[in-house]
């Protein structure tokens, strides 16, 4: 285990384990959160655009119906 | 019932529509508090000494400026007129709006307060007392604030006027709250102060919605 004798020594880091692992953990979480945020954002955006396209279709149909009715 | 539900839900939807707005009171709170060490110097003891006062003053100010929007928009766009004509007692609507506002803008302040007591070097006993006073005192703040906002809603540019009217009412609140925290710092009991805050809160809960509704009606004339 590199500089450490055992896995438990590695985890405890001579008593500094809490701080070290807290730092690394929070960093990981922060990075993952931002990455997830980006990913979710792209999902919702694409969904929104698809909804928008569907709405255009709907509107076109109503307009056509109206114009047919008018004639 | 579903009507009241609707009022509450609308407030939440409006708050969450612009997420950045949700965070604004908290950010303001954090910023004001971090200005103090810059202004008075970084000595940990000084900071500890003035900490509770600073946190409370900051909470007062950010509650005050967050409150402004509670009726102003509804007044400006005419929603308030429609609410008055809907036949629902206006004081109920007011109560719900205040509750929603507290949940959305003030609760986050309380949630971040541990961080800030870290900035200001408070001990954990002090922090517990601070938390208790904030939990009891801030709803009182919102209820009182609502009256002030309702009174100034018809007046343009009322934001400073508002603070003028309200700050005197906030003085007792501030004194009891910081007294409790100081007692905690000296390991003394502070139930008395909390009880007083609680009593004030109940009083405000009974009176404020009615007063606020009346003030709103006057603003329409």
């Amino acid at each position: 285990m590199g500089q450490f004798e055992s896995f438990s020594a590695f985890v405890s880091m001579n008593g500094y384990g809490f701080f070290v692992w807290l730092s690394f953990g929070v960093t990981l979480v922060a990075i993952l959160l931002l990455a997830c945020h980006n990913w979710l954002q792209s999902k919702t955006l694409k969904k929104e655009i698809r909804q928008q396209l569907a709405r255009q279709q709907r509107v076109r149909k109503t307009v056509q119906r109206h114009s047919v009715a008018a004639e | 019932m579903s009507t009241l539900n609707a009022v509450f839900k609308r407030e939440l939807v409006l708050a969450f529509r612009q997420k950045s707005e949700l965070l604004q009171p908290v950010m303001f709170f954090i910023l004001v508090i971090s200005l103090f060490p810059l202004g008075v110097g970084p000595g940990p003891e000084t900071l500890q000494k003035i900490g509770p006062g600073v946190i409370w003053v900051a909470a007062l100010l950010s509650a005050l400026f967050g409150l402004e929007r509670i009726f102003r928009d509804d007044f400006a766009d005419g929603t308030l007129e429609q609410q008055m004509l809907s036949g629902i007692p206006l004081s109920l609507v007011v109560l719900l709006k205040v509750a929603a506002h507290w949940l959305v803008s003030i609760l986050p302040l309380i949630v971040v307060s541990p961080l800030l007591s870290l900035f200001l070097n408070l001990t954990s006993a002090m922090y517990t007392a601070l938390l208790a006073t904030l939990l009891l005192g801030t709803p009182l703040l919102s209820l009182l604030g609502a009256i002030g906002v309702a009174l100034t809603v018809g007046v343009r540019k009322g934001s400073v006027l508002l603070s003028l009217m309200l700050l005197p009412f906030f003085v007792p609140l501030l004194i009891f709250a910081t007294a409790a925290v100081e007692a905690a710092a000296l390991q003394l009991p502070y139930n008395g102060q909390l009880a007083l805050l609680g009593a004030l809160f109940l009083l405000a809960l009974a009176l404020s919605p009615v007063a606020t509704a009346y003030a709103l009606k006057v603003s329409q004339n």
Partner: protein
Amino acid sequence: MLDANNLTCCKSDRVLFQQLSLSLDVGDILHLQGPNGAGKTSLLRILVGLSQPQSGCVNYQHTSIEQSNDFAQQLIYIGHKPALNPALTAIENLTYWAQMHGVSLLSDIWQILSDLGLAGLEDIPVSQLSAGQQRRVALARLWIKPAKLWVLDEPFTALDVNAIDMVQQKMQRHAQQGGAVILTSHQPVDMMHNIKVLIMEYQWL
């Protein structure tokens, strides 16, 4: 249905009207006319109870509007201000309004909006609509709430010709079906049925 007796209204230093009485029956459409500043808006706000007259009283079904139980239920008032929150969508704004006014939620609210020419704009924030589109959303209330009495302050501003036609037809049908309407408008109202006109004069200082 609605009676106003001896209303007097003063604004700051001027008497806008004095001893004004009017009564509205089922089937009436009352068109308030008069030059700018005559006091039409002031009168309407008194009639619905938003502001208090200097003297006089307003009765709905022979009870004062402040005591009347179903006045709120039977009234739609649409003033200069649209009562639309610009950050909410048309649907959200109208649903909220309907719930406030005790109207059971209508599933055809989408249909109403699309009939009003707002198809495709139902779920974008109202702030992004044009002046006339916002007015249409505000007027959609007439289709949503079944109320006897409509009080409308300049309903036609910003509307295009089609929309004005639609609203006028709606008003006429409403009057025929046992409702009553008071409106102000500087544009000619060319409904023929049962229309009454009240002309207010501008009182010089």
